[in-house]
């Protein structure tokens, strides 16, 4: 099927009919969620599921009180969970996002070879991510609260400027792009209605949440949390472990990762590895950021949020 046939395909009508439902859900969700990142993750999940997008990411500028601005991934959804995250979360992707944010523009639907350097395009293509589209939106009168995963380190609320980056396996239908654009165009206004984005003088209050909806008990019993290794189930099955394994940066992080057995608590691991609090925290943060481990509470429920950075 060539691209013209695909764009005229009758099933493309389906996506536009889904849009009002999605917008209604969008409005409802914005009032029910506690943090903009939670909202963005939900949109990404909905989009990947309903519009057959393989990967959707939200990238935004994050201002720091001391070291200027950096680009931070605010939310991401991957349709195929076996896809290694580092394929779409690496320096080359960030370079492109930084460029688009600086230029304050998106990028039309195109083949990945037109958007990324050949090595990155090869990598994306190898994992079935052949087409990409970037949507830019900004609103200088609104502030984006600091990311859940970066709630300390001197980060401050930042004027709203965001890139939504989407990847498809096959050339998407024309209506898919317009549906995505319509949803994304309304994200800022809907998020504002739900108080997820704030006016410039707003007093930002981060409300961390865990994946199971239970409020975080900051630092309370943190040392009893149990880290577990995240198994990359696609390595050795769908992709070579030579290309999908993430190197662990830092001796302390390697030492900690080696000691993690899925049973020992953070306190026990600290004793075992003889790492002091600061090194332990740095190592733990590295492993979580690299998606190599997941931290669970005593009942085995995964913990997300800023507890780690407290």
């Amino acid at each position, binding site marked *: 099927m060539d691209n013209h046939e695909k764009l005229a395909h009758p099933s493309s009508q389906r996506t536009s009919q889904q849009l009002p439902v999605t917008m209604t859900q969008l409005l409802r969700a914005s009032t029910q969620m506690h943090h903009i990142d939670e909202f963005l993750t939900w949109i990404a999940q909905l989009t990947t599921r309903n519009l057959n997008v393989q990967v959707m990411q939200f990238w935004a500028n994050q201002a720091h009180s001391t070291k200027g601005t950096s680009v931070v991934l605010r939310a991401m959804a991957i349709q195929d969970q076996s896809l290694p995250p580092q394929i779409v979360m690496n320096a080359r992707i960030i370079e492109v996002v930084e460029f688009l944010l600086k230029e304050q523009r998106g990028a039309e639907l195109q083949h990945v070879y037109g958007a990324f350097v050949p090595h990155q395009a090869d990598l994306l293509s190898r994992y079935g991510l052949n087409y990409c589209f970037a949507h830019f939106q900004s609103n200088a009168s609104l502030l984006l609260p600091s990311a859940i995963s970066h709630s300390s380190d001197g980060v401050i609320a930042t004027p709203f400027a965001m890139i939504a980056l989407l990847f498809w396996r096959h050339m998407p239908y024309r209506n898919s792009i317009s549906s995505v654009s319509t949803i994304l165009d309304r994200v800022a206004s809907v998020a504002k209605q739900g108080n997820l984005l704030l006016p410039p003088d707003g007093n930002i209050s981060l409300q961390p949440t865990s994946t199971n909806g239970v409020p975080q008990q900051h630092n309370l019993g943190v040392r009893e949390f149990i880290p577990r290794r995240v*198994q990359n189930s696609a390595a050795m099955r769908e992709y070579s*472990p030579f290309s999908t394994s993430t190197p662990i940066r830092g001796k302390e992080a390697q030492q900690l990762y080696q000691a993690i057995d899925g049973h020992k608590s953070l306190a026990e691991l600290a004793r075992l590895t003889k790492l002091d609090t600061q090194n332990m925290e740095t190592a733990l943060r590295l492993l979580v950021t690299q998606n190599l481990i997941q931290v669970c509470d005593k009942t085995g429920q995964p913990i997300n949020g800023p507890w780690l950075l407290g």
Partner: protein
Amino acid sequence: MNSKQVTDILLAIQATITLLISVRALYLYSRTRSDALFSIGLSMGVIALGGICGLIGDTILVSPYFNTLWFRYIGQTVSYLFIYLASLRSLKQYTAQIKRWHIIATILLLVLLFLTPFIPTSSNSTTLAILSGSRSIICFIIFLNYADIFISKETRFSFLMSLAFLLITVGISIYTMKFLVPNSISFDFVGDSIRVVGLVVLLVALFIG
């Protein structure tokens, strides 16, 4: 060039490929602590060691008391078995146990290697056919596993792995025929050659898959 030299060259190529894979996998394991890499590294290391021992037995230590066939055949069967286990999604939660068993099995294999002088030097052909053929059974199971993954996921890695293990299975099966059919030197060459091609595909799968 006589038939023994051809066999040794093929053995050297096999040992080089498996050693290359092993070194790369263990190097990456030291940086990533990935259990899959550990399995590949250790398995390919044992297979490479078997190949090197075979070469030494054929060239330097030409002695009736240096019979490495048992170590080579059992070593390959065990190593391919652990590669198969590493590729099973359902066993991911047991990776620590699998790793432990892999280490124990490797130690036992090394004991077998050191016991080489005490192993019967003239094993009967049926025993050797069973030992050699067991490798092809495991490789065929690995082939089926990757063929199944390729059908559902269509990834380059699963395609190359299924092709590699199909070739290795065929290669070993043909090689094993030499124990059952008298005066059949050509089975040796054809089987080893196909297996070398299979190992090259395996190398490609791991490095670019």
